[in-house]
């Protein structure tokens, strides 16, 4: 069994093979085949297709009418303001000031009303690409499960072994190794990653088929790329490798968010274009990486090594303040990747990617990388750095959890609610890592959250699929009756995330709440409990708005009035099967941490059999406080949106409520603040730099140049072309020299 751990490099290798096959063999075939098929089909429909395209383009614009430069800048302006709905009218106004901008906005509106839905089916080769990707992923998943079982009961393996691959670089005493490291933490993460990846890839077959059949093979290639990157990140033995994985997941995420890159911003939905979202995600992450990189460099400069297992030994006796600073900087990276305040802004926008991507990357795996990083360097945070480091982690998490939950309460876009809920739950994990004595609670919540959040996203994808891309919850309602196979697992996940007892989310979240109290941090306890209440409320608000509503069964819980205009169509097996499969861990994963049944997640993750298991939540009286609050949240949501006995605007009628609603709805205006910072900070600097270049440096250069030219122009007048002038100058010069000579020789004495 050890082979599953010792040769754990197989796990990233299989998707790598799939990636290479897909990218360099299958996708070219797909493209070539598609072009041939298109030219065949085109022969039949050529005249018709051509005509319609021509006429439509003539009806709304002609190429000459578009002033090309203002075209893109108009889109850019709209993109820049789009996630700040309050600023939208202004943005449109700005964009419309130029004639090209007007055209562009008109065009955007047209796109919005008639989204360009690609037709046709993926080719045989595209489908093959899907199969290859899934096969690779399945192999990895099986191997990860094998590794997990190999670790059970094997403490030596749980403590971790290094799997050397090759040496990247060596200089004298310092090395940059490419090594893998596998311990229980790695394996848990790998199981989560491979399991969710596998199911998401399976699910994507149907989803992408309708969304973008031309990019089918590309999509699977990028999914494989993401899986590899995530595995490298997970398996890394040192800061070099984790940074490599870190950046690679960033770029996979960039590619996948921008997968539908040709879409325009959706002005009325307040949604940026996918390409703008991808840009924002990458750059925001880079801000975090900036800190991460400096943190790594501090540690490297102190120890001369990147390896996680060597750093603690070599850090003995180093200044604690320095290590604290380094660890807080490393945590910056985690803040960026895990979308914690203040770098959370990219995650809601990242929902512009296809929904399976949101499920895989922006809910279950990549955003958890930050949590994983802190867990991986847990020892450094808690034993080497000062207590401030862990405090920063815990309070960032706690604040973000509450902050995101408040925003999630009032959002109307289904995916955005889930996005803010993800941010909030990630905050929980950081609280767990910050306050607990081991990385167990945080990782435990990471694991359970990965399953139920992936399920929620895939479920929302099912809804979107059924409604042809409609994301606004006001246009939904009562869908449970129409797509029960999607609704049922989603209900389980909603219950789980809300903290209803006996489901996985309850166990993991409650453990974290209990840890804050055990840590003696009342403020964090209040925050986390309050967030738990809010979570239950907004999740069920989303549930009722989407699947339930007045008139449904069980008081609006199941089915109800449908408010949309698109006829919902039931999804196929490839969509609901992964949901069902994910429902299993959603319900049962929590029992791994349930001591009365023998579950000791803590012992496994720390590799220490003697480690105390999580406390049994049911014996702790404080648990019942949070359970009560969770049910209270569910109840209020039920009354407001299920039975609709309390009007939805009950709280927002008074000015305070209205103001708060606006504040939450506009996400505390953080985006606007950042926009202003970028516009009046970075861009101002940039413009100053360019002006400096243009006017000062080039001014000096050109000034010297024109000065020389001017002198030359003046001197040129001396060149009359008349020989006698030259002669006069010559002899005049001779006279001057002679006079000088005489003056020096005869009168200088």
């Amino acid at each position: 069994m050890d082979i599953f751990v010792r040769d754990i490099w197989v796990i990233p290798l299989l998707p790598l093979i799939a990636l290479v096959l897909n990218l360099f063999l299958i996708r070219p075939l797909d493209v070539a085949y598609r072009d041939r098929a298109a030219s065949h089909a085109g022969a039949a429909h050529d005249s018709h297709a051509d005509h319609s395209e021509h006429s439509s383009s003539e009806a709304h614009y002609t190429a000459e009418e578009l002033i090309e430069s203002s075209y893109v800048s108009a889109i850019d302006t709209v993109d820049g303001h789009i996630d700040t709905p309050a600023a939208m009218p202004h943005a449109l106004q700005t964009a419309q000031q130029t004639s090209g901008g007007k055209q562009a906005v008109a065009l955007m509106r047209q796109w919005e009303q008639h989204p360009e839905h690609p037709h046709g089916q993926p080719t045989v080769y595209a489908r093959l690409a899907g199969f290859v990707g899934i096969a690779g992923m399945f192999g990895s998943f099986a191997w990860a499960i094998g590794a997990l079982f190999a670790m059970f009961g094997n403490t030596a393996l749980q403590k971790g072994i290094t799997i050397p691959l090759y040496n990247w670089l060596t200089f004298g005493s310092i090395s940059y190794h490419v090594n893998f490291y596998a311990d229980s933490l790695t394996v848990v993460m790998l199981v989560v990653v491979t399991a969710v990846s596998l199911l998401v890839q399976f699910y994507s077959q149907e989803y992408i088929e309708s969304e973008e059949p031309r990019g089918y093979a590309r999509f699977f290639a990028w999914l494989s790329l993401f899986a590899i990157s995530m595995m490298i990140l997970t398996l890394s033995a040192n800061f070099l490798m984790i940074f490599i994985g870190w950046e690679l997941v960033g770029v996979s995420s960039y590619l996948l968010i921008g997968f539908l890159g040709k879409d325009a911003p959706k002005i009325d939905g307040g949604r940026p274009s996918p390409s703008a979202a991808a840009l924002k995600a990458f750059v925001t992450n880079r801000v975090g990486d900036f800190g991460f990189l400096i943190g790594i460099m501090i540690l490297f400069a102190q120890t001369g090594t990147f390896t996680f297992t060597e750093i603690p030994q070599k850090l003995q006796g180093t200044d604690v303040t320095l290590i604290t600073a380094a660890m807080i900087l490393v945590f910056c990276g985690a803040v960026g990747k895990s979308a914690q305040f203040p770098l959370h802004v990219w995650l809601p926008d990242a929902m512009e990617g296809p929904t399976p991507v949101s499920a895989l990357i922006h809910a279950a795996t990549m955003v958890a990388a930050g949590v994983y990083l802190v867990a991986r360097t847990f020892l450094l945070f808690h034993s080497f750095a000062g207590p401030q480091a862990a405090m920063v982690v815990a309070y960032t998490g706690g604040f973000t959890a509450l902050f995101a939950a408040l925003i999630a309460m009032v959002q109307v876009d289904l995916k955005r609610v889930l996005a803010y809920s993800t941010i909030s739950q990630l905050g929980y994990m950081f609280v767990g890592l910050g306050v607990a004595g081991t990385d167990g609670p945080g990782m435990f919540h990471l694991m359970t959250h990965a399953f139920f959040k992936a399920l929620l996203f895939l479920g929302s994808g099912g809804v979107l699929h059924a409604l042809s891309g409609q994301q606004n919850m006001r246009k939904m309602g009562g869908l449970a009756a129409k797509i029960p196979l999607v609704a049922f697992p989603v209900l389980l996940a909603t219950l789980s995330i809300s903290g209803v007892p006996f489901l996985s989310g309850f166990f993991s979240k409650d453990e974290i709440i209990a840890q804050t109290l055990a840590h003696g941090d009342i403020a964090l306890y209040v925050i986390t409990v309050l967030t738990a209440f809010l979570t239950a409320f907004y999740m069920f608000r989303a549930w009722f708005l989407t699947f339930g509503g007045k008139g449904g069964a069980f008081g609006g819980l199941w089915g109800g009035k449908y408010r949309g205009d698109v006829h919902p169509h039931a999804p196929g097996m490839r969509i609901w099967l992964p949901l069902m499969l994910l429902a299993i861990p959603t319900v049962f994963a929590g029992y791994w941490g349930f001591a009365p049944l023998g579950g000791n997640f803590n012992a496994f993750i720390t590799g220490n059999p003697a480690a105390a298991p999580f406390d049994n939540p049911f014996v702790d009286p404080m648990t019942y406080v949070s359970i009560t609050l969770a049910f209270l949240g569910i109840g209020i949501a039920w009354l407001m949106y299920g039975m609709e006995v309390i009007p939805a605007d009950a709280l927002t009628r008074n000015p305070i409520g209205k103001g708060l609603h606006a504040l939450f709805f506009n996400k505390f205006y953080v985006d606007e603040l950042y926009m202003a910072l970028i516009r009046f900070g970075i861009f101002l600097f940039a413009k100053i730099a360019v002006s400096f270049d243009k006017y000062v440096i080039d001014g000096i250069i050109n000034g010297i140049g024109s000065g020389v030219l001017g002198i030359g122009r003046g001197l040129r007048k001396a060149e009359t072309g008349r020989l006698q002038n030259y002669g006069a100058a010559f002899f005049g010069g001779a006279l001057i020299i002679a006079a000088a000579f005489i003056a020096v020789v005869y009168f200088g004495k």
Partner: protein
Amino acid sequence: MDLASISFLILAAILVGSALAVVLMNNIVRAALFLAALFGAASGIYVLLNADFIAIVQILVYAGAVTILILFSIMLTQNPNSKNSNPGNHQWVIAALIALGLCAAIVFSFAQNSAIANGAGNAVTAASTNNTVVIGNLLYSPTTYSYVLPFEIASLVLLVAIVGAIVIGRED
């Protein structure tokens, strides 16, 4: 004051006077004629300096050939309409100043230079032998130290000049 000195003074007066006439005359033909006088007086100076051969060559080449050439070219280029055939240009004042200045500088230097100023003892010496023979040896001797190579080159220069003058002056 001996005869030689007196003749030097006369010759010098003729030289300076005709030189001034050359540059100041308004009629260019007269100027050219004064130039001929200058060449003649110069040959007299050479005689005083015991340079008989040079004196003869001076008369042959300058007073004979060059003066004739100049007169011919004046004849060929004379514009009959102009009253003033030898005008000055705009920079004549500057030119005068430069010339005067240079003259002053040179004369001053001579006057100050002790080696020359006190060189009364090194006065021009009377010739003991016939210079012409020695010059002939110096110019043509193929065996002893001589200027035969420069001389040949000079003849080549003359040849080129003749050809050049013909080519340039030829009517197309």
